[in-house]
């Protein structure tokens, strides 16, 4: 057997047959579920709070605290929704987790739902994950047949039903309120917060929305306790995290490492450095929505605080490595086109701002940039950031600001010389017919 791929979530991930309940059980899965469900729900919230587990979808909000916001005395039903939309460019960890270890997600959802009293759960999958829906539905049926889901979960008095729900292609549905709109059967557009979902979420009932990786951490944390989880990571960012590394590194892939590991160690030791002939120029460390880091800052530790201090965000853990043959203006143009395409159109700063940034980028790339265009980009980004209805606008503005901060010279070069600063090997970008 090969060495484990990670200390915790990836320890057994490649075990053959793990999608089936028997193998999952053999590895200790569901063993203590009945006993854990007999405990007082508040205990689970306290343990998860003490573990310091923070949301793995991007925002890094403390999970136990989120659960504790759900009102205890309410006549309304409560819901647990798993955000399995995994739409942030650069991120592909939840897909691997669900594809290979679906029962850990189910067990995590039963335990999370028990902690704050939800009796119904939904797993909202992005539309492209239809094959994962099949895997999950089969696993849910197995768990139901084994008495782990349903009227009396694992012989306890706790009732929990779980369903999968397939989206149909919309980045915005990864934003939790847009996801809830979509799940309710509306267009997936965001809703105003407050009220936060914990108070008024799905069907205006108390709802917790948690990411796949977050929920999959829960079973072991409750089984083994907070100190066990805190053996990894830093004081404020405990535990492990899965990073999806893409770009021209020797071994792209998903890697589970302790939080706080220097980015350079992830890239050099785990991913085997760059491919021959490539040099790293910049890294987007947390999914396409976060500002990039220049190569000079690669020693920054991968934890929430250090990334924020470095002027970027840990985000979803989507690490996109950009090499020195890539023009930063070209890379940003690609991303801004994405945000323009995915803006839901609800609010003006995001809808118009992403459109105009996209126009300016196209102009710069075509060698038709005007003297004032670089400042114009900065101005438009500034007029989106913090002024859009939801975080999608911020997600489009922050990478532009980061690129201007670290690579302004490449933008100016585009205007002055009417071409890229690098000899690109990807000149075909603008030749793709519209």
């Amino acid at each position: 057997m090969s060495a484990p791929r990670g200390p915790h979530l990836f320890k057994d991930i490649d075990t053959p047959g793990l999608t089936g309940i028997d193998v999952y059980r053999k590895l200790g899965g569901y063993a203590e579920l009945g006993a854990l469900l007999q405990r007082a729900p508040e205990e689970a919230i306290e343990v998860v709070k003490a573990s310091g587990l923070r949301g793995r979808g991007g925002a890094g909000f403390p999970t136990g605290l989120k659960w504790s916001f759900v009102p205890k005395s309410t006549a309304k039903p409560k819901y647990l929704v798993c955000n399995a939309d995994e739409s942030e460019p650069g991120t592909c960890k939840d897909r691997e987790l669900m594809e290979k270890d679906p029962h850990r997600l189910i067990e995590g959802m039963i335990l999370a739902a028990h902690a704050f009293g939800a009796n119904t759960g939904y797993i909202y999958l992005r539309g492209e994950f239809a094959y994962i829906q099949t895997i999950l539905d089969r696993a849910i049926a197995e768990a139901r047949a084994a008495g782990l889901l349903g009227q009396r979960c694992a012989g306890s008095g706790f009732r929990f039903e779980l369903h999968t729900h397939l989206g149909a292609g919309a980045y915005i549905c990864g934003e939790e309120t847009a996801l809830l709109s979509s799940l309710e059967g509306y267009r997936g557009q965001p809703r105003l917060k407050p009220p936060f979902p914990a108070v008024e979420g799905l069907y205006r009932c108390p709802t917790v929305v948690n990411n796949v990786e977050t929920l999959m951490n829960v079973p072991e944390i409750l089984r083994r306790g907070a100190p066990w989880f805190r053996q990894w990571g830093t004081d404020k960012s405990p535990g492990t995290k899965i990073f999806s590394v893409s770009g021209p590194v020797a071994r792209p892939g998903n890697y589970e490492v302790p939080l706080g590991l220097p980015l350079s160690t992830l890239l050099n030791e785990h991913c085997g450095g760059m491919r021959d002939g490539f040099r790293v120029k910049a890294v987007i460390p947390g999914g396409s929505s976060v500002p990039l880091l220049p190569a000079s800052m690669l020693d920054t530790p991968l934890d929430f605080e250090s990334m924020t201090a470095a002027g970027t965000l840990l985000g979803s853990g989507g690490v996109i490595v950009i090499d020195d043959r890539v023009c930063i203006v070209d890379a940003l143009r690609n991303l801004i086109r994405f945000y323009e395409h995915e803006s839901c159109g609800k609010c003006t700063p995001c809808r118009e701002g992403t459109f105009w940034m996209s126009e300016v980028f196209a102009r710069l790339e075509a060698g038709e940039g005007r003297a004032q265009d670089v400042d114009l980009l900065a101005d438009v980004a500034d007029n989106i950031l913090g002024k859009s209805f939801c975080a999608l606008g911020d997600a489009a503005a922050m990478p532009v600001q980061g690129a201007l901060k670290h690579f302004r010279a490449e933008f100016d070069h585009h205007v002055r010389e009417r071409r890229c600063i690098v000899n690109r090997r990807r000149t075909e970008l603008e030749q793709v017919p519209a």
Partner: protein
Amino acid sequence: MSVPAPMAPAPPLVALEPPLAWPAHLKSAVDEALSHYPVKRSAILPVLWIAQREWGWLSPAALKLAARTVELPEPEVFGIATFYTMFNLKPVGKYHLQVCMTLSCSLMGGERIYRHLAGKLGVGHRETTPDGRFTLSRVECLAACAGAPCLQVNDDYHERVDEAAVDRLLEQLP
């Protein structure tokens, strides 16, 4: 001069126009979808998916059927169907080739794959080959970044593809 033979009637433009009721083999799937939610409208995406899987696309008649099933006005269902990129409001080929063009794939040659396919099949974005076999689309991030560049054929992911792999794949499709 001979009288020209009468022209054969043109084949219907839409061969797969669905009936206005769910076929018997889909009724349980539709009922099952409706049973998952406390309100009917929540089942709109599952119901649209059932229709699209059955008929390959969402024709006006299929949208009508979906609207009736979840008890929503037809224009609202049209508005929902057009909001999401994966619903086909025009027929697509037997194989829908979806090439990811977002940054991670772009860095690893996504555009090259797209241009190769466009050249090979003689079609552009969201166009279908005359034999109805392939539809080509540029799509945004598929969550396969570590396996870039990625091509999705219908529901199946194909990762780390190059031109040769794409050629082989197309030949092997039944």
